[in-house]
């Protein structure tokens, strides 16, 4: 056996997928990504089925196929499922599946986090969807506006929405952290930031958007659930609350959400177009800038969902302008794609057909989008069927058609077999005709005055025929999608394997062998082009013969390269986690917390929470920051790389940093809530409310600040091998943190702030509670570091644990500072 074969054998062994029932303990991205994609698609079909039920109900006026309540549950679930269980997850799914291949990485940096995210998604999704079979589904619309969803809907439906979907949002955030770190740190050597595939740029932008868009919604969910479960009056106008705060928090999430759904599909288009034009993308940097610009702008548009809430003209004008401006970067991207096709020689395929169909549809959605961004027109169109037509043009044209194009394009890479061009053509024409027949008339239905979310409508106002046409179209569209599903699912045992790189693309993912191997890539290449398969000579041969990095797994470990953020120089060789059940159990117990809380079974919730915490601690203890048997290893091409780093070089540090950015965004949303109430009330805090006073918040804040300083010092002492000071410092910080947290709580407690009496005490309690939970978690982390040091799993040299915990404490200190300033300081200066 040659050396090369031996290396290949060892590599295969290290990356082997478990067999039998243990298969489900696998964490490798290519499997998790596939499960994720299939699950998200299953939810899509479920949501589509709900849509067909609605179309049957609306086919004729005064229909009683569904009752009003059933219809309301169904339209709520249709929106929620499509947005939270399909649109966002499908992007993360496809990215988990494709990204490592595109970057020539063996896996994502935190594969177990992807597995955890997947299991959370599956359990949460089944829980939310299942509710409809028990007549217990949410019925407040996917936007859940209070006060309708508080006192007027007593069942558990709204709780299922709030807790079940928060749970899924947490899982989406986990995946977003994973993807950001993946793009920034797991690139092959030489792939500088200006060489990465456009797809990765989009993923970076979108994952960052998720990071800043989801936390405001999670904060809103928290407030709304607190109102539902404990009667804290955040949205109750009689006690100082305001339903509009929810709308702000929801749409600060909800508008970026549209681009979170749309941009990944453009990312797929940006991969497909150059391949079928046989030429590199034209205007790479323009496209990147446009994507980043879209991401930024999308956070400044949310108010256009609230034009009819009686806002002052000036805010309407500003947000109207911003909403129209977002059309410009979109235009630039479209023209770059057209220019690429102009420069190249176009090769026709079903993928390109779906891309073209998607874009031509999306342009209509974009144009009607500009129309509704013009506030006067929105006064008429808002909440009418015009908007239903508009948003489906955007989402189906901008997301679903490109995703199908992506499926046709990437199927050979994922399964090793091509989909049928003939069925693809059938699917395309049925879907595009059905789609337009369904949704084009809706614009007119809306202009004729039909509001959205109506379970029925009267005859005689011009709605009948248009609705009937829409209903017929919906079934044609469904037929088109079913042809596609059939094409995916049909048995293809006798079909020959696809040739390697069947589309003659230029990017790294097409190094995949047919059928693909579990190692992903035989050796991790050195890159100096955006299209290495086109531009770098003998590239495929060199990769296959293991002439690049990490062609071997001498120690039988799963390894991948971590490179620097900007210019992709090798930093270290990361050993990633292998198959485990821990992620599965952690997800089960985390799910327990949310599901039991839905039923207000607080004891079970607590137990489940403790079990989740314990499982996660075991997972961290056994699987992270493992001290290697040697400090460095040879990774190929004469380069020695360390096997362990801590601090900003390490992926764990980045994951913590990015997670905390999301965490701070949620906190900022709560603070925003405080100041929002301040702006709408003449006296806030309302006189003569005592407030939490100065003494206790300041005492608590000071103690927490000292806990933070002790943690920082402990890290330094640990690095200097001063063991005793380390233990003293780290344990002192635990004590300080706990007493500090207690002092913080004493503020509102001793001044008898009753959170159910008015929104002011409720807001104070929420800020204090949020801070205290973070401080307590910090104390727990310090305890964990102490145990690691005692067990010898952390040393002066290998100190990633305490370094990451210190980073966490920086954010805790900031959170505490802001909380104290707001609850104790602000009432005195305002």
């Amino acid at each position, binding site marked *: 056996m040659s050396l090369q074969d031996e290396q290949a054998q060892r590599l295969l062994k290290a990356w082997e997928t478990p067999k039998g029932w243990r298969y489900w303990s696998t964490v490798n991205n290519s499997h998790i990504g596939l499960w994720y994609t299939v699950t998200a698609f299953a939810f899509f079909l479920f949501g589509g089925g709900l849509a067909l039920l609605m179309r049957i109900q609306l086919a004729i006026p005064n229909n009683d196929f569904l009752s009003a309540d059933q219809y309301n549950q169904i339209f709520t679930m249709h929106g929620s499922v499509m947005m939270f269980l399909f649109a966002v997850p499908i992007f993360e799914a496809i990215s988990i599946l494709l990204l490592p291949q595109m970057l020539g990485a063996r896996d994502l940096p935190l594969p177990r986090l992807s597995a955890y995210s997947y299991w959370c998604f599956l359990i949460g999704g089944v829980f939310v969807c299942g509710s409809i079979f028990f007549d217990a589904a949410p019925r407040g619309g996917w936007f859940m506006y209070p006060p309708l969803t508080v006192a007027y809907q007593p069942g558990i439906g709204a709780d299922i929405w709030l807790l079940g979907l928060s749970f899924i949002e947490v899982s989406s955030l986990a995946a977003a952290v994973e993807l950001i770190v993946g793009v920034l740190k797991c690139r092959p050597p030489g792939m500088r930031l200006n060489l990465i595939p456009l797809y990765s740029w989009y993923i970076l932008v979108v994952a960052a958007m998720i990071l800043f868009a989801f936390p405001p919604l999670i904060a809103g969910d928290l407030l709304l659930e607190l109102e539902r479960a404990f009667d804290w009056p955040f949205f109750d106008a009689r006690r100082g609350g305001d339903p509009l705060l929810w709308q702000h928090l929801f749409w600060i999430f909800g508008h970026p959400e549209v681009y979170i759904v749309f941009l990944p599909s453009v990312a797929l288009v940006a991969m497909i177009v150059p391949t079928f034009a046989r030429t590199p993308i034209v205007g790479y940097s323009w496209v990147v800038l446009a994507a980043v610009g879209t991401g930024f702008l999308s956070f400044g548009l949310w108010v256009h969902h609230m034009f009819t809430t009686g806002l002052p003209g000036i805010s309407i004008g500003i947000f109207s302008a911003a909403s129209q401006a977002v*059309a*410009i970067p979109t235009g630039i991207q479209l023209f770059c794609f*057209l220019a690429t096709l102009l420069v190249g020689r176009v090769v026709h395929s079903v993928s390109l057909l779906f891309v073209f169909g998607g874009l031509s549809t999306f*342009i209509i959605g974009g144009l009607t989008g500009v129309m509704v961004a013009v506030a006067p027109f929105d006064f008429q169109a808002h909440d009418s069927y015009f908007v239903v037509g508009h948003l489906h043009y955007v989402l189906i044209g901008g997301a679903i058609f490109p995703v199908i194009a992506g499926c046709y394009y990437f199927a050979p890479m994922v399964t090793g077999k091509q989909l049928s061009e003939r069925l693809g053509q059938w699917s395309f024409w049925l879907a595009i005709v059905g789609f337009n027949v369904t949704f084009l008339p809706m614009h007119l239905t809306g202009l004729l005055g039909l509001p959205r979310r109506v379970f029925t409508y009267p005859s005689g106002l011009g709605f009948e025929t248009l609705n009937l046409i829409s209903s017929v179209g919906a079934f044609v569209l469904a037929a088109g999608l079913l042809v596609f599903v059939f094409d995916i699912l049909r048995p293809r045992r006798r079909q020959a394997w696809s040739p390697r790189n069947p589309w003659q693309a230029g990017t790294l993912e097409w190094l995949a062998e047919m059928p693909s191997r579990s190692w992903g890539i035989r050796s991790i290449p050195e890159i100096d082009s955006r299209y290495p398969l086109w531009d770098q000579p003998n590239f495929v041969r060199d990769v296959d013969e293991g002439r690049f990095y990490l062609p071997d797994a001498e120690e039988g470990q799963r390894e991948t390269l971590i490179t620097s953020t900007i210019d992709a120089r090798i930093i270290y060789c990361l050993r990633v986690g292998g198959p485990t059940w821990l992620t599965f159990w952690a997800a089960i117990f985390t799910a327990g917390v949310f599901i039991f809380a839905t039923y207000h079974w607080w004891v079970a919730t607590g137990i489940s929470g403790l079990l989740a915490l314990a499982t996660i601690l075991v997972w961290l203890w056994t699987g992270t920051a493992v001290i290697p048997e040697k400090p460095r290893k040879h990774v190929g091409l004469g380069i020695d790389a360390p096997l362990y780093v801590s601090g900003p070089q390490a992926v764990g540090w980045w994951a913590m940093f990015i997670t905390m950015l999301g965490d701070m965004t949620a906190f900022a949303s709560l603070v925003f809530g405080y100041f929002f109430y301040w702006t709408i009330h003449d006296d806030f805090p309302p006189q003569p409310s005592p407030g939490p006073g100065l003494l206790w918040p300041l005492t608590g804040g000071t103690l927490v600040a000292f806990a933070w300083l002790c943690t920082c010092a402990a890290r330094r002492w640990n690095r200097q091998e001063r063991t005793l000071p380390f233990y003293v410092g780290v344990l002192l910080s635990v004590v300080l943190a706990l007493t500090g947290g207690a002092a913080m709580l004493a503020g509102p407690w001793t001044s008898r702030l009753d959170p159910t009496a008015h929104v002011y005490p409720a807001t104070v309690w929420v800020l204090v509670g949020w801070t205290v939970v973070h401080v307590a978690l910090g104390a727990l982390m310090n305890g964990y570091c102490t145990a690691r040091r005692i067990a010898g799993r952390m040393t002066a040299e290998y100190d990633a644990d305490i370094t990451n915990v210190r980073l966490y404490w920086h954010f805790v200190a900031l959170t505490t500072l802001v909380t104290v300033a707001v609850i104790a300081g602000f009432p005195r200066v305002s």
Partner: protein
Amino acid sequence: MPLTLELALGCARAWARDEAFHRHCLSDRRFMLDSARRSLGHRWSLGPVVGAWGAIVSFAATQAGCDRQQSTLAPAGREAQQIADLFWWMFGAGALIWLFMMGLGAYVLVSRRRPHSERQTRLFVIVGGAVLPTILLVILLCCGLAMLPRLVARAPTDSLTIDVHGVQWWWRVRYALADGESIELANEICLPVNEPVGFNLRSEDVIHSFWIPSIGGKVDMIPGRTTRLVLHPNRTGIFRGACAEYCGTSHALMNFYVRVVSRDEFDAWLARQKRDAVSPTEPSARRGAQLFVSSGCGACHTLRGTSARGRVGPDLTHFGSRHSVGAGILPNDRQSISHWLQRTGHIKPEVEMPDFHVLGEEQLADLAAYLEQLK
């Protein structure tokens, strides 16, 4: 405002004011076809797609027949008129842009051509992707912003002001009278033509949205806030309004009627509404009046001039004069009233009013007779 813009808007307004567009039910269908053909075809010459849309519009208009009571495209108010004009302009421009893009797409994908150089396409991307959209959007923004101040302005101080409260799932309407008093009715609004009218909008439970598509845009009704809307109805007739914000189970069944009449008719109407409820004369109605009392209807409903002073449900003082039963969902006749009383919760799911099927056919007929004569 730039001259060209002024001209453009002027044209749109002129077209939209086209007399015949608003008039006469009988000729409406033929007229809509003509009008669509004339205005879409000639003035804009947008070709087949617009033609097709025009056909769809006129088709829809024939669908609506004489009852385009809820259409934003058959405006009966200044605001709706302006917005409809704006829509047609945006629609025309949008259709042109889309056709242009499709032409480009066809050229790129289908035509046989030599590949272009990358240098050539740079200008293409800059002009097509950035410069042209920016110019078009700036124009559009100016148009939109120019309209905005008048749409969000307060009503002139001496104008008619009406309080409307959204309640699950009906509308409480209150007219403030000159003498400081006020009268209340429900699910029906009467307006004098060609006069500004201000609405103070509030909610008594969840968020609703007040929308009369033919007369103007919508504004939400939010608990704890008062929102305002000013409308200028400019055509007499009967129009239909709806709740546009999802507000619970029977959101679809929360409608109302708006009657726009001449000033004289309005004054006469208001004078009639000021009076107390009429006493029944017909024997059946007299029995109905007793039933109204004995069944406890007065606990929720007010009949001015009688002992019924309930505030939970709609004021029924002049119920018989209204256009509909159950917030715009049934015609107002004896049969519908007794049907409504018998199957309230079935007709309007989860409505708070209990049904009175225990009363039996005859008694329901008496009650209906009583309610119907409350003109």
